[in-house]
């Protein structure tokens, strides 16, 4: 049963080893000639005047909320879709009822302007 995941585990091991190894080789091979101006964050030659870690437009936060709502609901579609051949018409009715709040929610957000940029 778990042996199916052996390939994934092996691939994960190789991938981590490869990426970490590349970074280590990079640290070892590269020259070390750093000074203050070189290490300053890129700002088109100017001194940065604001910190990047400040508040950002609330729209991005809104998208994150929409994502949580829709992605969790989308997850319920997967098992239903995979078993649709067996469930048939009762299955369709069930998912139609389930989708009503989803669609209503989408229409509501749309009308409220949550999807405007």
């Amino acid at each position, binding site marked *: 049963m778990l042996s199916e995941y052996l390939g*994934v585990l092996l691939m994960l091991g190789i*991938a981590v080893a*490869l990426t970490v190894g590349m970074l280590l080789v*990079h640290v070892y091979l590269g020259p070390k000639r750093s000074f203050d101006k070189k*290490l300053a964050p890129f700002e088109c030659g100017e001194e940065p005047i604001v910190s990047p870690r400040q508040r950002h437009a609330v729209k991005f936060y809104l998208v994150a909320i929409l994502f949580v709502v829709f992605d969790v609901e989308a997850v319920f579609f997967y098992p239903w*879709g995979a078993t649709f*051949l067996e469930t048939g018409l009762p299955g369709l009715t069930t998912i139609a009822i389930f989708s009503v709040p989803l669609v209503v929610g989408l229409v509501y957000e749309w009308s409220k302007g949550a999807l405007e940029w």
Partner: protein
Amino acid sequence: MILVVAKTLFILIVVTLLFAPLITWVERKQSAIMQDRIGANRADLAGMTFLGLLHPAADVIKLLSKEDLVPAGANRFLHALAPILSAVPALIAFAVIPYGATYRFGDTTFTLVAADIDWGVLYLLVIGSLATYGSVLAGWASRSNWSMLGAIRATAQMISYEVTMGLSIVGIFMVFGSLKLTDMAVAQDTTFRVFGFLDLFASLPAGAGWLNAIRLPNWGIFLQPLAFLLFLTCIMAENKRPPFDLPEADSELVAGYFTEYSGMRFGLFYMAEFIEVVVIAGAVAALFLGGWAVPYLSQETITAGVASLFGEGFANLVCMLIHVGCFFSKVVFLVWLQMLIRWSFPRFRYDQLMDLCWKVILPLSLLNIFLTAAGMLLAQQIAPGAAAS
């Protein structure tokens, strides 16, 4: 045990050592041809340039021998972790994509896929969303304004398209009745009657029987054409390549979330992007273009045909080679298609990008699910037990 190791190593080596470097070359050469330039032709070995094929190797050497820089004020741990978090999901995503069918040699039976997981498609979606962490952490850890803007854009874009990417392929799950990619590939190794739906209305008039002979491969792209378009759009947006490169947007944000990355740290982002191109091609091929299936020639047909001449063991071997070749031809075609799209379209504006996701693709994928359900119920009315129309 040894088989699993061999299968895993084969696909990993093909994807990372063969496809990914070649694609960086194809990207340069194809863009050069499309823009009437000469393209990469400078790196040479003893005076021979090999059409610029040495450039990928030269790139790796150059990136490895650059200075390892971490900008002042950056979070050193997260700054190093971010490229790894970007590259690892790209590298391991190919584990579930079958590049060949199930073959039998004597007593051993094996399927050409690194990990034959029941929830293969979900694995792809899960691994795809893990890559979000890489770009977000990269932007946040760099402590640069450009990086931060890029990271915020990347977050919103990737999580938006993740929702629609999942919803757009529910139709495929329904048609094939499975989440297992190997099962889907086997189901696509057949054909269906294009005009089968006419049975619903009346029996065919005499003389029109030839309509029944028109058959198409049972591929996702023919059963779910709308899902194909939606999924391809979403998965390309997930990869953040032009025309969806808002998080990197060179002309606005310098380089977006990896502005503060140089050397191999940047190289890992670069590598991840190109490996993801191959993964996208593999996933779309497996879901929509039949995976390893040869159109109109099912596995039994090939095996039986060759076996009658040369014996069964050899037939299985030939069949395997044909299937693997067929799968990688489809991958190459899809990679080329992505390159064509990448060099043909200008970048979206951010509001257009979000509108496309939430106002076009999301309603269309919901619509597609219900249309598919209705179509399948009708098909069951015509021929009970038939998989799809």
